[in-house]
């Protein structure tokens, strides 16, 4: 009987069918299937949202605990993934609020992890120099994303990293698709304003011929965003970069 369940689960059960079994029969097997299918995406979402892979592991567990807890409130005509993303995202928001209240800086939360990541990716990258550069860039991106307000971070993470369609993001967040689009645009504009000076700076360091780095960065982001108010926010990442590189 169990074997039959297992086989049918492997080949045919959709997320919604599995969830229906969890709902009506508290089928632990079906629940295990759902966890197995979705734990990686949910862990990634939580890691991208909080910038902290350890925390992401806990949040993932909590998200599935909540799925089981709230199994009765899942609507049978809804999509399981939409519901799951929403639960996980709300947990991330709660966690970020808690972190803010405690006054911790999520920017520094992942130091140990980035070191672990350094070891982990040692095999993938060809030379130590390129490897180090890759880690630094990854860290810059992590920090840049964390500096974005959550409403922009969530749409970018769901669209870019998790590959959800804009329409699906609208369903997850329960907002109109137009709002998702404008948040994507605003998020990208802000992200570009944060990232461009840093990566220009890096290129400048890599290539000493670029002595006019700052001017170059200012011009590029200025023309890109079409406004002149970028000088203030742009000065901070420069400092941060110094910190990271030194």
């Amino acid at each position: 009987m169990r074997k039959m369940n297992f086989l049918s689960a492997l080949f045919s059960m959709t997320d919604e069918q599995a969830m229906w079994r969890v709902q009506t029969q508290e089928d632990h097997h079906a629940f295990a299937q759902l966890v197995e299918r979705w734990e990686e995406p949910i862990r990634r979402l939580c890691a991208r949202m909080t910038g902290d892979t350890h925390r992401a592991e806990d949040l993932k567990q909590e998200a599935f605990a909540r799925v089981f807890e709230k199994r009765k409130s899942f609507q049978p005509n809804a999509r399981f993934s939409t519901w799951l993303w929403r639960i996980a995202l709300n947990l991330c928001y709660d966690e970020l609020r808690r972190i803010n209240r405690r006054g911790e800086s999520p920017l520094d939360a992942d130091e140990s992890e980035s070191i672990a990541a350094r070891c982990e990716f040692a095999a993938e990258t060809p030379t130590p120099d390129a490897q180090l550069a890759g880690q630094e860039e990854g860290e810059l991106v992590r920090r840049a994303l964390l500096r974005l307000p959550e409403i922009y971070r969530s749409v970018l993470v769901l669209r870019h990293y998790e590959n959800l369609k804009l329409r699906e993001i609208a369903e997850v967040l329960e907002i109109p698709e137009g709002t998702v689009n404008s948040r994507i645009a605003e998020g990208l504009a802000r992200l570009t304003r944060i990232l461009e000076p840093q990566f220009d700076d890096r290129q400048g360091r890599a290539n000493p011929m670029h002595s006019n780095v700052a001017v170059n960065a200012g011009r590029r982001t200025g023309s890109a965003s079409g406004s002149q108010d970028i000088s203030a926010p742009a000065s901070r990442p420069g400092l941060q970069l110094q910190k990271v590189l030194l």
Partner: protein
Amino acid sequence: MNHPKREEWAPYLFDEATAEERRKLAAHLQNCPECAAEIAGWQRSLKTLDRWKLPAARARSSQWAGPVLKWGIAAALVLGAGFGLGRLSAPTTVDLNAMRAQTEATIKSSLASEMRKQFNADVQAALAATRSQITNELRAQLNMMLTEAANASATETRRQLNEFVQAVHAAREEDRRTTLLLFEKMQKQHCADYLSLRSDLETVASLTDEEIRRARQSLIQFAANKSNQSSKP
């Protein structure tokens, strides 16, 4: 120049725009260096996002057991189908060696998948057993604690009830004594009253007796006088 709205670029950047929208926006980028620069910046940012790589999740048996098992079964199915097709389409002269190789492969893979299934079932059973054992232990401990708590509370209740009963008894005893005293007092009073009433009555009776005797004597005297008077004249 008439720039498109900012949010129109989102579907364009992620390949979700309709053909018409895409054509319109691409044409605009051709003619508008300002927008072209901004969108190029956004695209660079999107590319940059890929440089943040997450470390792989901690290795877990279920994460490879699932796919391995799935592929094992899939391979068995494909081999089986191939074998069947081969049999159907084979000419009458059968290539025994090829057939044996095919059969061996099929058996091997199905055996492997069977063993994996078995292993999985065993792991599940062990998990279930452990879970039920823990549950039982917890339940037993909980029961013991509950019993202890119930016993303790029962003893306490009994003690308090005893105290209460004793107090009630004492109070009732006190009451009874008081009532008895009062009763005795009342009875004494009653007796005294009765005696005095009796003596009073006796006095009255003797007085009355005396009075009646005297009245009778005076009546007799009066009668004698009367008869004397009537005989004289």
